[in-house]
């Protein structure tokens, strides 16, 4: 069968990707191209590493292989501005960073910028995601942001929600003599969501676009808890040694923000909330 490719069988089944973004609508910018480091000038492509399991930022299309999402569209727009074609490679988180500068020119995988990480790579901020919480529909367990101690909270492994956010809250619980939060850390966000639906965890915490997507995908079995907080910038990663190219990417992003392509893409994916007014290379605060 080809169930995986038969779209439109309800919103819960199969991603109904928005109208695909056409990178040919983006104008080439020769001034920016001229700034490119020599090694990149001759290349026809911009190779992007992305952990494509983070809907709607980056995930796989129905064929199970083609990456889509707003990060992917942004990558295409960046490449088009530089007169190149973007090739987005699915990769495991641990394999993206070592390959920056050699195999991948950019890493775009909803990387949250923090000072520690900034020591290892160059970041160009391009999106603002906050932390958002979700619980089962109707909040049957009566979870509030103030009674989390002793509860089970699901997070995706390696996210800022896991560490430091929930970890710190748990530490505060312990400090206050209350039971610690049981942090259920899973590799896939999907598994976290499924467990929340199934009720083995009491709440989950993730980037706001992710939570919104999960809410849509689970047919209203979940609802948000509280509001978005702790907005943190996400960045495009560039090899630490490649400062020239990082500068170019910053300029390209600002151009895309100014000419409206950026907003268009985010609107397409229904995620304008996180839009940034200005992209910055290595912003000091998260």
């Amino acid at each position: 069968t080809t169930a995986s490719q038969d779209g439109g069988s309800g919103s819960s089944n199969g991603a109904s990707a928005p109208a695909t973004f056409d990178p040919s609508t983006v104008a080439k910018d020769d001034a920016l191209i001229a700034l490119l480091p020599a090694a990149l000038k001759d290349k026809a492509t911009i190779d992007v590493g992305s952990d494509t399991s983070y809907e709607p930022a980056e995930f796989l299309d129905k064929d199970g292989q083609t990456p889509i999402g707003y990060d992917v569209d942004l990558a295409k727009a960046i490449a088009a501005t530089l007169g190149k074609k973007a090739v987005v490679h699915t990769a495991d988180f641990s394999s993206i960073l070592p390959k920056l500068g050699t195999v991948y020119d950019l890493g775009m995988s909803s990387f949250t910028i923090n000072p520690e990480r900034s020591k290892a790579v160059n970041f160009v901020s391009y999106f603002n995601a906050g932390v958002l919480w979700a619980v089962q529909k109707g909040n049957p367990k009566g979870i509030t942001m103030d009674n989390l101690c002793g509860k089970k909270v699901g997070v995706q492994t390696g996210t800022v929600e896991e560490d430091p956010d929930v970890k710190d809250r748990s530490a505060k619980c312990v400090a206050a003599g209350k039971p610690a939060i049981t942090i259920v850390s899973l590799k896939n966000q999907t598994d976290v969501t499924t467990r929340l639906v199934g009720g083995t965890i009491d709440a989950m915490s993730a980037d706001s676009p992710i939570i919104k997507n999960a809410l849509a995908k689970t047919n209203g079995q979940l609802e948000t808890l509280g509001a978005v907080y702790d907005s943190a910038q996400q960045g495009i990663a560039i090899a630490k040694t490649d400062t020239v190219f990082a500068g170019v990417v910053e300029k390209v992003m600002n151009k895309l923000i100014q000419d409206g392509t950026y907003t268009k893409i985010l609107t397409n994916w229904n995620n304008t909330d996180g839009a940034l007014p200005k992209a910055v290379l290595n912003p000091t605060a998260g």
Partner: protein
Amino acid sequence: MELIDAVPVRHPWRWVGAAVILLVLVLVIQSMTTNPKFYWGTFRTYLFDVLVIQGVGWTLILTVTSMVIAIVLAILLAFMRQSDNPLFRYVSWVWVWFFRGTPVYTQLLFWGSVGALYPKIIVGVPFGPELFSWDTATVINATVAAIVGLGLNESAYLAEIFRAGLKSVDNGQMEAAEALGMRRSKVMWRIILPQAMRVIIPPTGNETIGMLKTTSLVLAVPFTLDLTFVTNALASRTFLPIPLLMVAAFWYLVITSVLMVGQYYIERHFGKGVDNVTKAPVKATAAVAAAHAKPVETSGGTTEGGQS
């Protein structure tokens, strides 16, 4: 003569055991089929999905090719371990130690990143001019990296299995073959190894079935066509991981079953002359008849058996 027809010993507890096990099984199956959380509808939808079937194919390709590489290397390593050249023994030991000792995920990551770490493969005079050079990324593409990574890692495990197998063959076999004037490599290949296979095959079957599941780590390379990746991707799209895990489990079980059948036949092949020989005198009468009925020419046809 009056044949003895004795009343067998009764084993009531066995029947209780049987009943309990059956009951548990029925309860598990019943609860699985009726539990809505398993989404059997979704399971059926994706079971024969073209992506899933392709994933099965790729998983099989990875398993088979990397096992072939691993077996070849393992034979080499096991022979080296028994060599009288200390260097070979030492290299073989270090190889086994290193590849068994480090996680296969890290190894796969290395093979996937070797292009990043060493962008060019250069053949040349050390500290002298370079003769040839290739772009690493083109030589080691994702498929090659996945197969090489899995194969090298597995070779270390198999080398231990082969070593134990070779050790199990009676020393007299080596002496008898050497006394016939056979060279050591030939003795190993034609006499020792075929006999060692009896001991080698069951754990190698284990390793093959293990490898089937280890292929899911090729995402580290990244290689994104294997069964686990495909079903995971489908799961994150549909937000229904359990039925898609069931799909993957179903196919792994099917392949495992096929492999177990294969193992049975390979075990039987290499057990010939040893395991599956009925008590000599009984067989003898039948075998004499067979030997007389069969023209001698055919008998030589099976001589090659041990080589495969």
